Structure formats: structure tokens, C-alpha cells
């Protein structure tokens, strides 16, 4: 809806007239015209200013740093794309990429499925709905560090509760940090515990916007609740599912705090052989442990590219949800 205030001489246009009682800006006044045009920009500017300072500038600067051999508080020399070339042949980097993708798949798929089922359950008429709806959000408001500390204790080798529980079934104490599979499981459960409720609430909100008469009509036609879920709920949720997949992709690929905490020693190496070192940890290790800023910056840019690719792939998958039906 636009107001054409800048053509005072124009004849009245066809179409709905402005309501008489509404006070519009004075026609012809220069300040008002400026005010009308500039105000929206002024009002949205804080975001873009902050984004420019904390988003665009670091992005550009990181690119600049990534073209250098740049030591923390030391020398810097321009080396062009050398860091990138070295990086794509660096085993440790690809190990981190594999770990990140592995933990992403391991955590995100069960998490979203679980969130969907949880949301569906919460959408039903059950006693104490509000309690349960708030309950699923609770993990989110706990500090991620606290979550990681608690889970790391649970997965402790010597005094951990999970090993204690497993010992009843004759399972020897597992050193959860030691192997890829075990550390990935441990870290994935931390992520799921924290984010499943969050996604469930978003999906629940979307579910409640689905018109009830669709379900009523389906019920009259004899569709089972299960069929209603697949044929009505899922297709109607598509945009929301895409949103949650996006958020999870970005979150999953920048995974950092949980594996760092799980390590015990914040050395960013993700276990003795890097069995759960993520790309984000790799970046921090290069920058702040080995003081190699240029290399870390290049890795940060590759991570950015990785997230773009990952998001696009996920988008092409999720856009098909319910599309053909």
C-alpha cells in the first residue's frame, strides 16, 4: 500500500478514497516529504548499522586476514590463497568437517522427528497442556555450559551415571571421549536435549494455525488421525519445517560449546586424535592455540561456504515435503 504524496497536482485517482478522518502528512511540505521517506530508513537503521559493524565488517576483515600468513601478535605477510590451498589438503580440517557433519546428522534428524511428534502430542487436548508446553521449553533456558557440564558428568568414565547404569547389564565402563561413535552419541544427546523442545514449540505454534475444519472434514471422510497427520499436518507445516531445518543446519554446523565442554581440557583438540573436533573448534584452535590467524580465518570462510551448501541441500530436500500430494 503506497501513498502517492509526491504528485499534488495529479487528478484524483480511481480506487478507494482515503478515509476522511485520517490525518495524512501535509501535501507539498518539503520537511514532511523528507520525513515520510526517511523515517522508515531511520527506524530500520539500527539493525543494519549493527549488522554492518558486527556482521559485514568482520566478514570482510576475516577475508582480508585469510589472505595473510598472520601470527597472533606477530608478523603478517600477504600470501594470497595459500591458506585455502593448504586447508583443503589438511587432513585435520576434513576430519573436523566429517565430525561436524556426522554429529549434525546424528543429532538433527532425531531431534526434528522427535520435535514433530512432541508438537503433535502437545497439540492434542490433554490435561495440563500449559505445563507440558512450558516444560519442553525448559531445557532451552538452561545455560548451554551447565547442560554440557551435567552431561559430561553423566558420561564420565570413572564416576559417570551412564556407565554406572550400564554396569548392571555387565557392560564395561565406556570411555565416552575415546572413540568417534561414543563421543558423537554423547554430544548429540546434549544437543537434542536442549533443542528438541525449542523446535517442538515452533512446530506447535504452526500447527495451531491449521484450520480445524480441515481435520473435521477429513474425519467425516473417515481419515484416521495418523492419515490426518501425514496428509494435513505435515504439508501445512512445510514452511515451518523448512525454517527449523535451516536453524538446525546453521546451529549444527557451527557446533562448538558442547564438544568443547565435553573435552574437559579446553584445548580445542576434541579428543586425543580429534575424534570430536568440530570445524568451529578447529578454527579456534588454529587462531588461539597455535596463533595462526590467517589459517583460522580461511577455515572460517570455508565453514561459511559449508553452511551455505548445507542449507541449500536441506532446502532442496525439505521443499518437497508434502508438495506432490
Amino acid at each position, binding site marked *: 500500500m503506497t501513498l502517492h504524496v509526491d504528485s499534488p497536482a495529479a487528478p484524483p485517482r480511481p480506487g478507494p478514497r482515503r478515509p476522511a478522518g485520517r490525518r495524512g502528512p501535509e501535501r507539498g511540505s518539503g520537511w514532511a516529504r523528507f520525513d515520510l521517506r526517511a523515517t522508515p530508513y531511520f527506524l530500520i537503521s539500527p539493525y543494519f548499522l549493527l549488522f554492518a559493524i558486527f556482521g559485514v565488517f568482520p566478514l570482510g576483515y576475516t577475508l582480508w586476514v585469510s589472505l595473510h600468513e598472520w601470527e597472533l*601478535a*606477530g608478523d603478517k605477510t600477504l600470501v594470497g590463497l595459500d591458506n585455502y590451498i593448504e586447508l583443503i589438503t589438511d587432513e585435520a580440517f576434513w576430519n573436523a568437517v566429517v565430525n561436524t557433519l556426522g554429529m549434525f546428522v546424528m543429532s538433527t534428524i532425531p531431534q526434528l522427528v522427535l520435535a514433530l511428534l512432541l508438537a503433535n502430542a502437545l497439540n492434542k487436548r490433554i490435561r495440563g497442556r500449559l505445563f507440558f508446553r512450558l516444560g519442553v521449553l525448559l531445557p532451552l533456558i538452561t545455560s548451554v555450559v551447565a547442560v554440557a557440564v551435567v552431561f559430561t558428568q553423566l558420561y564420565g568414565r570413572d564416576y559417570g551415571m551412564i556407565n554406572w547404569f550400564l554396569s548392571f547389564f555387565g557392560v564395561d565402563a565406556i570411555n565416552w571421549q*575415546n572413540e568417534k561413535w561414543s563421543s558423537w552419541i554423547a554430544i548429540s544427546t546434549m544437543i537434542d536435549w536442549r533443542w528438541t523442545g525449542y523446535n517442538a514449540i515452533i512446530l506447535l505454534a504452526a500447527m495451531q494455525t491449521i484450520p480445524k475444519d480441515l481435520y473435521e472434514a477429513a474425519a467425516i471422510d473417515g481419515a484416521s488421525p495418523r492419515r490426518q497427520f501425514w496428509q494435513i499436518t505435515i504439508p501445512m507445516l512445510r514452511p515451518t519445517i523448512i525454517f527449523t531445518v535451516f536453524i538446525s543446519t546453521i546451529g549444527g554446523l557451527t557446533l562448538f560449546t558442547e564438544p568443547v565442554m565435553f573435552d574437559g581440557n579446553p584445548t*580445542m583438540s576434541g579428543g586425543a586424535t580429534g575424534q570430536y573436533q568440530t570445524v568451529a573448534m578447529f578454527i579456534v584452535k588454529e587462531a588461539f592455540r597455535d596463533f595462526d590467524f590467517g589459517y583460522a580465518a580461511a577455515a572460517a570462510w570455508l565453514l561459511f561456504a559449508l553452511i551455505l551448501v548445507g542449507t541449500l541441500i536441506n532446502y532442496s530436500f525439505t521443499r518437497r515435503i508434502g508438495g506432490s500430494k
Partner: protein
Amino acid sequence: MLNNKRHGRLAAVAVMAATALAITSCSSSEPAEPAAGGSSAAAAEPVTITVHTFGGGENFGYDKAVETWNAAHPNIQVKYQNLTDRFEDVYLPQLLQRLQAGSGAADIIALDEGAMGLMKARPQFFTDLAEYGLDSRKADFPAAKWDNGINADSKLFALGTDIGGMTMCYRKDLFEKAGLPTEREEVGKLWPDWNAFMEVGKKFQAANPGKTDPKFIDGPNTLYNVILSQEAPKNGNVSYFDKNNQLVIETNPAIKTSFDTVKSFSQAGLTAKLASFSPPWNAAIKKGAFATMGCPAWMLGVVSGAAGDDNKGKWDVASVPGGAGNWGGSYLAIPKQSKHPKEAAEVLNYLTGKEGHIMAFQEAAAFPSSLPAQQDPAVADLKNPFFNDAPTGQIFGASVKDLLPVFLGEKHAQVKTSVEKVLEGMDQGSVKYDQAWTRFLEAGVKAAG
């Protein structure tokens, strides 16, 4: 709780890694504050000198020294803060960022021996202590300790605090349970060398066969560093790097010997498989999950701090197998960005002087590198009540007599942390014993590159 705070801050820093990268480095072009302005007005107006240190347990032990100074110097108040218990991966990166940013570093900063190579190569960040007359202190220090405080520009930039003479800490009560001697003299005689130490360990382990029973040694890294500090002086006084800063990790026999010894202890199942300075390690010290640990002087403060008063008297100190060695020992320096370098130099002179050294030794068992302090009866006759009244003054005094300095290269800290990760992995089982040496070398080469 300390850990939570630390991790929180670390996480916050690192989540914004990309941002931080840019922000911290972009301010590098700002010149450091010139030092000249502040000094003349200082006598009239009170100034605050900040001191930042690191270390677990009692860390540098400066509480009393600072209190004493503040009481006597109303115009120069010292604000002392121990930032973290982790040097290489928390304190050092933070310090480098602050140096590069030109602000945020304290007036007096503590530096671990392991980072001295790195700091010597960055003379632009440090005040020349000779400008404030501290070059007159040369006679107070052993030559090696003094020389290590001179940087690439041949300027004196740091003075020594403690020195890491070596002993073996042991749990008296656990020794008694295992049927071993408990008196420190006798215990020391049990292990003239590492082979004998291994035999004692096997005896101990035989008396504690259960899964939840205590182990003989904490983990691979304390042991490794103790042995390396003994081996390096036998091989040209170098460890990972030679004196031209070239990586010699593959060719230096000291490294291989230390590695092999640790491997044999790990294979014999004598370790509790703990990573040094990790939360489980601290918990194990408190719970008595292991019986012995190599103890440079400063480690006594770490142990008593982690074990807490409940364990007072359970620990004791004996001589270390394999002779003298030096692990660790720190320095104090004044960054160029300090606004009050003159007053800071006075405080630094005090803390590294005889009085400061003695108070730190009394508080944290950090053995003085200062020669006058070493000879003082307050140090020489000191007993450590936590360690069953062990005459630590006498023990460490003897252990530093034959001490030889080891050269540590510019990238020593990076290589050290990387290879120690492999040792931990080997001990815990994620690195196979037959692949461990190759992995160890790979990690070292990569960290140095």
C-alpha cells in the same frame, strides 16, 4: 565453580571467533601508550598497579606479599588477580590478544617458562627493565634464569620468580595400605631410578588390584614432563627445538627416551589415565585416586589447593627418581602498554626480590629462583604442613643445586600441548601403542609448522 566461569568465558570468546578475529586484530595498528607521561605525577597521586598471574591451587602465592606492599605503599596500590589455572590455552592466547590490541594487559604480567621463547621474539611489546635500573639485579639470579629474561633486542624484559626443582609427591596413607614404606627418606631410597620406580609401582598395583582402587601414577603427562626435564640437559639442553629454533623432536634422544618411559608405565597399567590439570584430575587429587605424582616445587601449591584441607598430612614429598631436573618456573614482565611503568618496575622489583620470593614460597611452595632468598633461613628451613611437615626448603634447595637450564623454542607451548594430547590418547586407548610415536611426531611437526 572456577571451571564454569572459565569455560563460560572461553565459550563466549570462541563462539564469536570470526568476530573476535577481526576486532582484536584491527586495533593492532594503534600505537601502544607512551610511557613517559605518567611517571612524574605518580609520586603525588596514588596509582594502581595491576598484576595478572595464572596457575591452579595457590598459584603464585602473592596474596600476602601484595598485602604487605599495599600496607606500606599507600601511593602505589597493587591489585593482584590470578586469571586462570590454565596457561597455554587460556592465559597465553588472551595475553597475546591484549598485547596486539594495545590494551587490557596488566601492568605486571606473569609468564610461564614455556612461553618465554615466544615472548623473547616479540620485544616490541615489553618495557626494557634496565631503564628502571633492574639490570642491577643480575647477581641475585642463577645465570640461566637471568639470561632467559633477555629478549631478541638484547633487552632485559623479565625477571624470574620461582624455579621448578623436582621431587616426587606421594600419598602416605595409600603407601601404608599397600604395605610400602611411608617415611620420606625410605621412600626416596625405594626408587633411585625409573626402573626401580616401575617396580614399586607394580608392587603397589598388586596390592590394589580392583577397578576402583587407586592407581600408582596420575597420568602420562606429569610423568613425561618430569622425565623430559631430566633428559633434556643430557642432550644439549634442548627439548623440542634446538637453539636456532629448528624443530628437533625427531632427532633429540631426550624426547624419545621420555616418550618410551611413559609408554612403558602406561602399558604396565600403572596410570590412572588422567589428563593433567583437567577437572577429573583435580577430583582425583581430592579423592586420592592415585598415589604418586612428579612434583616440581610449584606443583605442591597445586596439589594442596586441589586436595583441600581435608587431605592435610596425607601427602608427603620424597626425592624424584632419576636425579635433578627443572620443569617450569615463571617470570614477571611489564608490557609497553602499561601507563605506570616506573611504579610497576618498583613492584616487580619487590615481587622478584628476596622478600617477595620468600613470601611466595611460604604461601604456594613456589621455590625461589632468587639466590639470596634460597639461602635465607626462612626458605632453607621451611617445612610444609600440608605435606606432613616435609622440609621442602631443604629438599628443593638440594634439587636445584645441579639444575641445568633447558632452551625452549618460540613455539614450545604449541608443540608441548599438541604432543601431550597424543600421550593422553595413548594412555586412554584412543591411540594404539604401536602408532603412538608416529602420531606424536606428526602432532609435533604440525604444531611447529
